[in-house]
């Protein structure tokens, strides 16, 4: 077996976990110690103040006549400033979703989480945000039975006193019965 009929030898020494565990291969460890404080900026700063009040704000671009969420102070399509804050709904529809058993560090979770892209009512078509779905079941089978693309949802907020001006001020989006099809 060759990559090319002219090449016969392939460099590389694959290691097994036990090579390291049994000390046959030496390693050096380093742990990152870093902290950051990110300024939320003009657009997201206002967006997060809105979340604290239980409101979701987008920005209107006069060049494209579209309301964008997440908001930005410029329109990346026509490259002009956006000019106006517009409160959009805290209801919308599921554009796509998945069911996660993997945590951010690749460790496994037995409790599924349901990330989704939600197109918010009042924003221009296709302007979605990523968030989580809730109240949709505890098992994969149940979640797949209950969640559909296009399904109407509503934001479930933290109690006002607990809000911090962060995306997590919305706990999740839940199915909205009677939201129509």
């Amino acid at each position: 077996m060759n990559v090319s009929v002219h090449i016969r030898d392939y460099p590389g020494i694959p290691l097994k976990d036990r090579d390291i565990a049994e000390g046959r291969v030496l390693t050096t460890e380093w742990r990152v110690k870093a902290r950051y404080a990110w300024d939320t900026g003009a657009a997201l700063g206002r967006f997060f103040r809105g979340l604290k009040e239980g409101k979701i704000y987008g920005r209107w671009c006069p060049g494209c006549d579209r309301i964008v969420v997440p908001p930005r102070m410029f329109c990346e399509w026509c490259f002009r400033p956006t000019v106006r804050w517009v409160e959009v709904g805290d209801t919308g529809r599921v554009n796509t979703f998945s069911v996660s058993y993997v945590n951010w560090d690749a460790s496994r979770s037995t409790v599924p989480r349901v990330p989704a892209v939600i197109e918010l009512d009042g924003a221009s078509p296709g302007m979605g945000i990523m968030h989580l779905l809730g109240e949709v079941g505890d098992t994969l089978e149940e979640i797949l039975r209950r969640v559909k693309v296009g399904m109407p949802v509503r934001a479930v907020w933290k109690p006002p006193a607990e809000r911090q001006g962060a995306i997590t001020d919305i706990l999740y989006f839940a199915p909205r019965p009677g939201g129509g099809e």
Partner: protein
Amino acid sequence: MGYRNRVAIVGAGLTRFMRRAQETGKELCFEAARMALDAAGLRPRDVEAVVMATAPDVFDGVHMKGESLADGAGGFRKPYMRSFVGGGSGVFAVIHGWYHVASGHFDTVLVVAEEKMSSCLPHPQAAFNGIYDQFLERPLGVNLLWIFALEMNRYMQVHGIPLETIALVSVKNKKNGLDHPCAQEGIPGHYTVEEIVGSEVMVWPVTRLMVSPVTDAAAAVVMVSEQVAKRITDKPVWVKGVGWHLDSSYWTNRDLYYPKYVEYAARMAYDMAGITNPRREIDVVEAYDPFAYKELHHMEGLLLCDKGEAPRLLEKGITARDGELPVCPSGGLLGVGNPIAAAGLMKVAEIFWQLRGEAGARQVSRPVRTGLAQAWGDLMQVGTVVVLGV
């Protein structure tokens, strides 16, 4: 497009793909670069400039990784440049190599791609977290698989594609990978659709056998001007077209069912290559396949079939190694492994070997004159395409 030199690839090298390599990144670079130079019959002193592709520094915990790897890649006291567009880097580096030579600045350029993902503990997945928006996405616990699962589900929903059909990509590529001498241990194999679909659900609809592994490896190619190519080889493989394109990082504002940016990258490469009907003029394809659905998604973006039609080509066996349009005859990322930047360059190397008729057990059945390698990356937003021909 005006440029001074036609550009040929004249040699390629590849290390083994490994879950964890004993070698450092520098050592892997050295091995792949030496192999490519030997294959081209060139000496290190013939190399006038070096291009390096390697993905996020945070994998290695070494900032300015490009500079740290330079010595291993033969970049010592030479014009040296790092190409970095995440997963798209391996093919992007070949595009950089192309315009180094096409511009007339250099006659001989070494392009090296390296990834050593195993150093990051407990798992390099954690390093990916730094890619996502720190205000809107990270606080929700996002990981790489979430995003791809969202895109895959959107693609499935829009076209009504069953999971079992997408699993056929894994079946095909993992089988192809059995003939690749560098394939990572435990990655290629004979699998059934049931085994692929029935493997661990990581982030539905993505199961364990529909996602490529973590890999350490390096790859390299040598790119030269026409005058050098004619002197050193009877079998130059010409760069016929290059294309790249970036979409918005506001990915939740895009319809993920179709990679428009891949289409624009492909159109740029096809225009340059004079290709008007890619479905008939491209003979062999290495589409980027870090996830099973991505191969199909990318075939559509590359205009090799209509939107939503890639699954049909797959089901009919058209994309098999003995089919009319072989896709990922190497085994791809699903069948060989996924050392991010080196995986993209492995795809270019595969097309090089296929067009020279040197691919041995992996050689596709049909005669091949024109091939395409594509990679994809950044925040699901970049397409990089190279069209090669003999």
